[in-house]
């Protein structure tokens, strides 16, 4: 591999958009057949760099660009494709209504003139591509019926059909379970062994660090450095990406003397989770971590009354809870901040004000039985002030807010119900680092006021810093409990990501 020229060798790459420097003097190199990570926060310039490499954008003058050893003065999208550079964006850009074979061999269907579709050649090409990945899929299945993981494989196969020699994968593991991630990594190993380079683009790289050899970190459009992945941790990577020494001061305190609020005993549901037992106390932040697919969200759905458990018991302040729907949970004092803020947490097109009062319509109903605009206004103003939400007008659509401010609106909605238990399911997904600290400041203030909080996160460092105790969930069971005061972050990460 050492004699081969690198697949990508770029230097002095800069790009300015209307006065904003998206990239400044960045260098990027990937060897042939190498598995590489490109890491950075949202807005650090990752996408801009990819778009320059694939010829979508042209860099400022002075950039040095070479693909597979060939110096290039300018790159067009066609040239990049001919040289074998492919990108699989997070949305995959496939056709859900077409079959697996049609999706894979899609490019052979393109052309200027109408002609007959050669179904046999199409299937053969698709079959060959899947064989190179050592994966078997039903070629005639409609793509829309397949799980995301299989669709990703289809996208990779499509890249291979057009002779890709380097594939960028944008946030490939974002929505995969552990088993699916493992399968994907196996495919990537096969690709690498066949000399195809793969670049993972992500800001959560824990899963792919182990199979990559190097990681390039960008921050604010500048190159931070290129590091070997040997010995790299998610925590160190986060520091490199944000440029801030993360506040690793553990805030855990002994809560064993506080009265229990939520007691869960032997809770099981189908093959989602089994025999889950824990106690959540007044004023406690209980962390719950584990990989995707560990059953965390499924457990929280049962605690919130959305689904029913097959066995086990939930007690709230000593009384057994029997919930027929999440309305019973809300009435009992349980609030749930969903991990999917876009689809479940907020009603994006509706106003900030209407979203904030949705869970407490009864409270803004006046004596006449009609909703009182005045009460709504007052309630919204109160929470906007209380949680320091940055908004334009309360009547603006909630979709106009940043991730961090949207999450504050979700919190406002639930805090208005005056809950006893607050379940936070990955509350920092899609929230920038600076805003995350703000969210956790609110969480700690709420705990100090006596709210019992279950903090679910797949980032171990988040629960290590912010929780009083940490439960580790894997394969649907609670497999460990840690005290952040006595367990260092590295040990906890090693246990969870093992």
């Amino acid at each position, binding site marked *: 591999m050492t004699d081969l020229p690198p697949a990508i060798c770029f230097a002095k790459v800069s790009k300015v958009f209307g006065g904003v420097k998206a990239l400044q003097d960045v260098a990027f190199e990937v060897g042939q057949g190498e598995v590489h990570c490109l890491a950075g926060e949202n807005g650090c310039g990752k996408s801009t760099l990819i778009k320059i490499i694939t010829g979508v954008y042209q860099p400022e003058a002075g950039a040095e660009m070479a693909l597979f050893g060939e110096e290039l003065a300018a790159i067009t999208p066609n040239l990049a494709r001919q040289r074998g550079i492919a990108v699989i964006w997070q949305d995959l850009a496939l056709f859900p209504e077409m079959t697996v074979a049609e999706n894979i061999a899609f490019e052979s269907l393109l052309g200027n003139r109408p002609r007959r579709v050669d179904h046999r050649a199409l299937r053969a090409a698709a079959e060959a591509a899947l064989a190179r990945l050592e994966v078997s899929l039903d070629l005639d299945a409609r793509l829309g019926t397949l799980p995301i993981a299989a669709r990703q494989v289809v996208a990779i196969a499509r890249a291979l059909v057009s002779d890709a020699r380097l594939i960028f994968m944008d946030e490939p593991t974002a929505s995969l379970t552990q088993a699916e991630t493992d399968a994907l990594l196996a495919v990537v190993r096969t690709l690498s062994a066949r000399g195809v380079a793969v670049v993972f683009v992500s800001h959560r790289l824990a899963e792919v660090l182990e199979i990559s050899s190097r990681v390039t970190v960008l921050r604010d459009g500048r190159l931070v450095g290129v590091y070997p992945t040997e010995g790299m941790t998610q925590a160190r990577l986060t520091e490199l990406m944000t440029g801030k020494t993360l506040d690793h001061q553990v805030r855990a305190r002994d809560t064993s003397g506080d009265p229990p609020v939520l007691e869960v005993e032997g809770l099981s549901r189908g093959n989602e989770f089994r025999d889950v037992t824990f106690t959540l106390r007044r004023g406690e932040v209980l962390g719950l971590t584990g990989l995707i697919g560990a059953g965390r969200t499924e457990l929280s759905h049962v605690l919130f009354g*959305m689904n029913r458990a097959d066995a086990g018991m939930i007690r709230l302040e000593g009384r057994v809870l029997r919930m027929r729907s*999440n309305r019973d*949970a809300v009435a009992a004092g349980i609030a749930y901040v969903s991990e999917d803020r876009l689809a479940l947490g907020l009603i*994006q*097109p509706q106003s900030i004000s*209407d979203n904030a009062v949705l869970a407490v319509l009864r409270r803004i109903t006046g004596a006449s039985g009609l*909703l009182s605009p005045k009460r709504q206004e007052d309630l919204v103003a109160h929470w906007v002030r209380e949680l320091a939400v940055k908004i334009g007008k309360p009547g603006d659509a909630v979709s106009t807010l940043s991730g961090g401010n949207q999450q504050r609106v979700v919190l406002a909605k639930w805090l208005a119900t005056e809950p006893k238990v607050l379940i936070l399911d990955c509350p920092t997904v899609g929230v920038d680092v600076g805003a995350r600290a703000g969210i956790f400041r609110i969480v700690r203030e709420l705990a100090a006021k006596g709210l019992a909080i279950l903090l679910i996160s797949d980032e171990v460092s988040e629960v290590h810093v912010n929780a009083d105790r940490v439960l580790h969930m894997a394969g649907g069971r609670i497999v460990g409990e840690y005290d952040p005061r006595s367990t260092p972050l590295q040990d906890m990460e090693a246990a969870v990501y093992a």
Partner: protein
Amino acid sequence: MMDRLKQALGPEVPGLLGFLLLVVVVFGLTAPNFLTGANLGSIAFQLPELGILTLAMLIPIISGGFNLAIIYTANMAGLTLAYVLMQFGGAEAGIGPFVLGSVLALLVGAASGAAMGAVIAYIGAHPILVSLAMMIFLRGLGEFLTKGGDISGFPPYLATLGHGSVLGIPVPLILFGVCAVVWHILLTRTRHGFAARMVGSNLKATTYSGVHAKRTLVLIYTLSGVMCAIAGILMLSRFNSVRVGHGEALLLVTVLACFLGGVDPFGGFGRVAPVVIALVVLQVLSSGLNLLGANQHLSTAVWGLFLVGVMILRWGAERWKERKRGRG
């Protein structure tokens, strides 16, 4: 004060009022009898049935759905009332049977709506399919019961409801006004109306917020059915007859009126006031063209052009606003 009023009516109102003014001025100048009492009176009598049917269409659309069964629900309710009146002597029937028949008619409307709402909410079937099934069912049932004919010969006092006036205002118009005000309050000031808008934008997120979204859907279609029944009773009094197919042509006009009135075709947003103004514009357009001697079909064609025109204008206004924001 102006702000409150603007907020209550919605941003669509000024534009629509401008349109209305333009249409009135153009016809006032070109059509000889346009601005006479007789013509305005005829508009005032024609508007309410279409108006009430449009209200029945409005809330399902706001909830992200549709109700294709409004016309047949209305006529089925009318048939119910007609049946009761016939049992009590037809033209000789007193007020008592009318009240009884009307209550039963409202119940029939409510039942039709509730059935659709329940299937949509609990089975998750698409509202267009469910209401299409209900529409075909009701039409078939109605044709079967009436053998395709008219039922007529109702007591004379029904003419008061259909053709009478109080203080110079046509009774049907008063009825429509009351219904519109009730609908406005329902949508802006009740928990169910609030939930209907939220369900229209995102059913799942509304459910996750602890709102009984399924019950909301059932209620929305039930209320839509009740509004249909009111329209059915009014049509019976105006035509002095009931037939299953009365007003078939109005179905898509109600949809047109909703969209002209700025109701979001994807659900979640819509107000009563602009829809009412849109109805008036449609009615004025058709009556003006009628006075000019245009063919009735031509006025339907103009309605279609009108909707396209409004969409283009809205797009233009949006672009203009964006450019202004971009500069500011």
